[in-house]
C-alpha cells in the first residue's frame, strides 16, 4: 500500500500552480528531426492510399442485408394450428408479461357454432402498439400455447402512428416458412425443455 503511494504516477497531472515551471524534459531524449516528421506524414499518406485500393467493407443496405440471428426478435406474429384454428386462447398472459404494456387482449368464449381456437376462449381483439414495444420477447416466453412469436422482420417504419397499432388481422399473417418450420419442430405442449436432470426437477422448480 505504501509502495503505491510513494511511487510517482506515470502521467503527472497537467495542472500547474501559478509560477510553477514546466517539468524538465527527460535527459537523453532526442527530439525528432524534420526528416522523422516528414517520414511520419508520408507513413500516414501511405496508409490511406493502401486503404484506397482495398475493397469497401460496407454493405449496400437495401440490397445487401447483414445476417440476423435465428432467434432475432423482430415483429410479432400470431400462429395458427395446422387445421387453421388460432393458437391464442385469450389468456392475457402476454399482456401481463409485457413490461411496457403494449399488448391489448380482449377474450371471448368459444362456442360450438363459432370455434376460433381449440381452448375455451379466444382473443376477440389482439392489438400490439409497435411504437411502445421494446422487442424483449417476454410475451413469447409467457405464452402457454406458443401463439405469439417474434419474427425476423426489423424494417417496420411506416407513415402514420395509427399504422403502428398492429391488429389481429395483421398479426395473423403467415410466418415466413423457415421460421414456421423451425417452430413446428418444437412440440407446443412442452415450450421449454427442462434443463435439470430427472432426479433434480422437483427440488428447484416446484
Amino acid at each position, binding site marked *: 500500500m505504501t509502495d503505491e503511494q510513494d511511487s510517482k504516477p506515470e502521467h503527472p497531472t497537467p495542472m500547474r500552480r501559478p509560477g510553477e515551471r514546466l517539468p524538465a524534459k527527460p535527459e537523453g531524449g532526442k527530439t525528432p528531426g524534420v526528416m522523422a516528421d516528414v517520414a511520419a506524414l508520408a507513413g500516414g499518406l501511405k496508409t*490511406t492510399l493502401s486503404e484506397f485500393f482495398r475493397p*469497401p467493407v*460496407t454493405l449496400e443496405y437495401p440490397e445487401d442485408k447483414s445476417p440476423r440471428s435465428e432467434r432475432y426478435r423482430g415483429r410479432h406474429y400470431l400462429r395458427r394450428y395446422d387445421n387453421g384454428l388460432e393458437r391464442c386462447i385469450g389468456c392475457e398472459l402476454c399482456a401481463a408479461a409485457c413490461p411496457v404494456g403494449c399488448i391489448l387482449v380482449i377474450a371471448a368464449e368459444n362456442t360450438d357454432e363459432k370455434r376460433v381456437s381449440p381452448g375455451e376462449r379466444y382473443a376477440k381483439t389482439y392489438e400490439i402498439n409497435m411504437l411502445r414495444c421494446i422487442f424483449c420477447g417476454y410475451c413469447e416466453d409467457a405464452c402457454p400455447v406458443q401463439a405469439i412469436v417474434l419474427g425476423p422482420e426489423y424494417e417496420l417504419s411506416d407513415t402514420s402512428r395509427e399504422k403502428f397499432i398492429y391488429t389481429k388481422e395483421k398479426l395473423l399473417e403467415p410466418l415466413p416458412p423457415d421460421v414456421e418450420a423451425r417452430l413446428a419442430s418444437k412440440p407446443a405442449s412442452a415450450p421449454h425443455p427442462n434443463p435439470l436432470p430427472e432426479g433434480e426437477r422437483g427440488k428447484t422448480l416446484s
Partner: protein
Amino acid sequence: MNQIYNDPIGHWIIVTIAITALLFTVLTATAYTVWFERVALGRIQRRPGPNRVGPFGLLQLAADGVKLAFKESFVPAATDKTLFVIAPTIAVAAAFLAWAVIPIGLWYNVQYWIADINIGVLLVFAFSSLNVYAIVIGGYASNNKYSLLGGLRSAAQLISYEMSLGLALVPTFMIVGSLRLRDIVEYTVHWGWYNGPIPLILLTPIGFVIYLISAVAETNRAPFDLPEAEQELIGGFLTEYSGLKFVMYYLAEYVNMITVSALAALLFFGGWYLWFVPPVLAFFIKVVLFLFLYIWLRGTFPRLRYDMLMRLGWKVLLPLAIANVIVTGIILVTTLG
C-alpha cells in the same frame, strides 16, 4: 480570326462566348470534383461513397443542388442582412474571376483564355485574396460567435499564408522573366540536345513544396480548414448559411481548389505539355492528380492546432520562401552573369 478579334464588337462577342463556355466548364468540373472527393474519401475510409443517384452516383450533385436550391433562404435575426447576402456572392465571384487569366491548352498551339494579360499570376492571387473578405464579412454578418471566430481565424490564416504562397512563386518568375501564365508554361530550355519545354518543378522544387502547403491553407482545406472546423466551431463562418447562400460558399471552395490545382499544373508541371499526350488531356490529368492529392491530404491528416498553423506559416514557410528567393537570385546572377 484576328480581324474579328480586333473589331470591338466582335471582340466582345468572342469574350462573351468564351466566358459562357468557361463558366459552364468550371461549374461542371466543380460538380464532379465534389463527386470525386466524396467517392475518393469514401474509398479511403473503405466505403463506396455516393452511388445511388445515376450511374456511379454521378448525378448526386444535381440532386444535392436541387435540394439546396429549394431550401428556405434563411437570414438570422438581428444581422446585417445586406452584408449577409453579399458575403457569399463575393466568394463565388472572386473564385470565378481567377479563371479569367488561366489559360487552357486545347490542342497543339491552340490555347484558350479569356484575358491574356502580362500580370496573370498576380491577378489570380488578387482574386483569391478577395476570399478573405467573403469569409470575414460572412462571419461578421452572421451575428454568431462561432461564425465570427471562424471569420477571424480565416483572416489571420489567409494573410499568413498569402505571403509564402506569393514568395514561393517568385523564383519561377525570376527564371521565366514573366508573370504571364502562358509564358511560364511555354518556357523552354536549351540543354545540350534537349530543346523544349520543361516542368519548372525541376528548377524550383522548394518553391513547389511551399506552394503546395500554402495553397491548401489558402483554400481552407483540411488539414488547414480552421475557419470551418466542424468539431470546434460547428461550421465557422458557414454556421448560419443555408440554401443557395451555402451553395455559393461551397462552390467557391471547390472552384478555388480547382484553381490552385490548375495553377500548380501550369506553374510547376508544364501545363498542357506531357510527352505525347494530347494537350487538353495532359492538362486534365495533371489537374485531377492535384485534386486527388488534396482529397488524399484531407483523408489522411487531422486538423492543425491554431498555434501550429501560425508557427508553420510564419516560422517555417515564410523564411524558407525568402531564402528560396535569395538563393535562386544568387544562382541566376552567377550562372547568367
